[in-house]
């Protein structure tokens, strides 16, 4: 009597299946989330209401639990859910379905033979939403909202390997706000932040959807350009330079004109590692600074 109450009151979905995978028990949590009453599903194969479970992996794991009395785990990370239910909480708005972590385990009869299996279904939508936010934040620069250095380093390696494998074009732009120290010294660091945010947003609106713009350091940015050859990369850098030259940043009633210097590097066979490409762009940027700033210099 008490066990039956626990079965129905617990905030977890519980299902019991027999050897033929017919539903034997279906708790209240499952009723409420599936809109299927226990009396309507008990006795029917689980697949009659949930055809998505009729797949090799689910069947393989059922077999394993019946044979070995072990447990099977269906993590949210890969499976998202076993039972397609609507999300329950406000966190669910970003998911089409309730995110579930499910476990399958053995139930034995008097002679210790596994005669049934249970499935427990836990709603992990909230955790999945938090995790998604954390992953996003881990890739984002706090001030500008564009990608951060950590993301850039990983992505650079990925794109570099992709280039090596498929021999597709790949370019990279490094750029740095000209005389940024003067902005900070004259107008203060808050103004410096406004300038960095403004430039990041402007560049973000000019680059292609397939490019990755990241804040590399203080006032330095890096843009990865997959599938961009040397001409495309140089013309994009020039467009960025012009867009910034023509823009005005206002802070505290004052108007500032900002310029940026650019270094462009293009990937070719002799470039042996990703850091070398970055160094080439950095050297070109240094040359752009040396030769008077507000210009695009391409690596030789």
């Amino acid at each position, binding site marked *: 009597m008490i066990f039956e109450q626990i079965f129905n009151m617990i905030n977890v979905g519980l299902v019991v299946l027999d050897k033929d995978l017919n539903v034997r028990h279906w708790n209240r949590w499952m009723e409420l989330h599936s809109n299927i009453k226990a009396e309507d599903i008990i006795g029917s194969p689980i697949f009659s209401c949930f055809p998505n479970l009729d797949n090799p992996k689910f069947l*393989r794991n059922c077999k394993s639990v019946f*044979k070995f009395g*072990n447990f099977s785990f269906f993590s949210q*990370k890969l499976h998202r859910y076993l039972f397609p239910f609507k999300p329950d909480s406000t966190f669910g708005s970003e998911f089409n379905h309730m995110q579930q972590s499910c476990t399958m385990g053995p139930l034995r009869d008097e002679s210790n033979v596994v005669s049934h299996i249970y499935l427990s279904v836990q709603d992990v939508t909230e955790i999945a939403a938090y995790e998604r936010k954390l992953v996003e934040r881990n890739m984002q620069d706090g001030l500008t909202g564009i990608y951060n250095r950590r993301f850039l380093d990983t992505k650079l390696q990925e794109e570099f390997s992709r280039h090596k494998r498929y021999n597709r074009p790949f370019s990279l732009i490094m750029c740095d706000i000209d005389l940024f120290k003067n902005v900070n010294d004259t107008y203060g660091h808050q103004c410096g932040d406004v300038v960095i945010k403004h430039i990041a947003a402007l560049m973000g609106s000019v680059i292609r959807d397939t490019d990755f713009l990241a804040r590399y350091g203080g006032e330095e940015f890096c843009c990865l350009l997959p599938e961009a050859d040397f001409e495309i990369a140089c013309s994009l850098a020039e467009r960025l330079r012009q867009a910034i030259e023509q823009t005005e940043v206002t802070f505290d009633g004052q108007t500032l004109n900002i310029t940026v210097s650019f270094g462009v590097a293009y990937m070719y066979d002799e470039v042996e590692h990703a850091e070398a490409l970055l160094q080439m762009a950095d050297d070109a940027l240094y040359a752009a600074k040396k030769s008077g700033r507000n210009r695009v210099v391409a690596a030789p």
Partner: protein
Amino acid sequence: MSIAAEQALSRDEQDILQELMNIAFGRASADLAEVIDTYVVLNVPEVRTLKVVDLPEFISTEISDHDIISIVEQSYLGRFKGVALLIFPSGAGRELLNLFGDNVEDYGEDVSMAALEKESILEVSNILIGACVGKVVELLDDEVSFSPPRIIIEDHPRNAIPCEIFEPNSLATVMRTVFQFSDRNISGYLFLINSSESFQWLKKALNLFMEQYE
């Protein structure tokens, strides 16, 4: 927790455990064929008692066939209590994915091939460990529950297994076997590491097991 050497399994007890595992693995192998549609050869297991701090070096020596490895860990909890480690050579995920024939398309667009390969390793580990440990405890008349398996080391050089993954200062009974999927180029090692906490019970259970034959 440290433990005196005399509390560890005796030579005879280790021999019984080895024999029992041999029977258990034979049964596991037969049943595995039904579950995953392929025959898994489980070699004659070896049993020995070691200090936990010596485990990384022991494992590294025992698996000298492969240089880059991944390790899956899963703990089992009953009176028979410990940690199972499954060691695969680098690249096994791809082979295992082919074995199951699961498709990337079945899992939505944001699931990468790498994630799917990892999942295949975890699923196979869960089933293999479940089968081997399940059959051993069945013979010892115990029941165990399992924690979810997790990949603790991914594509790591075998000679650099960090010792932090084990609880130091204790003795462990290590049961080691080599497994091989027939018709597939997949093989690896299974280590069952029973902590000293279960030694007392294990001694009794092994003696009870022997009584059936005496």
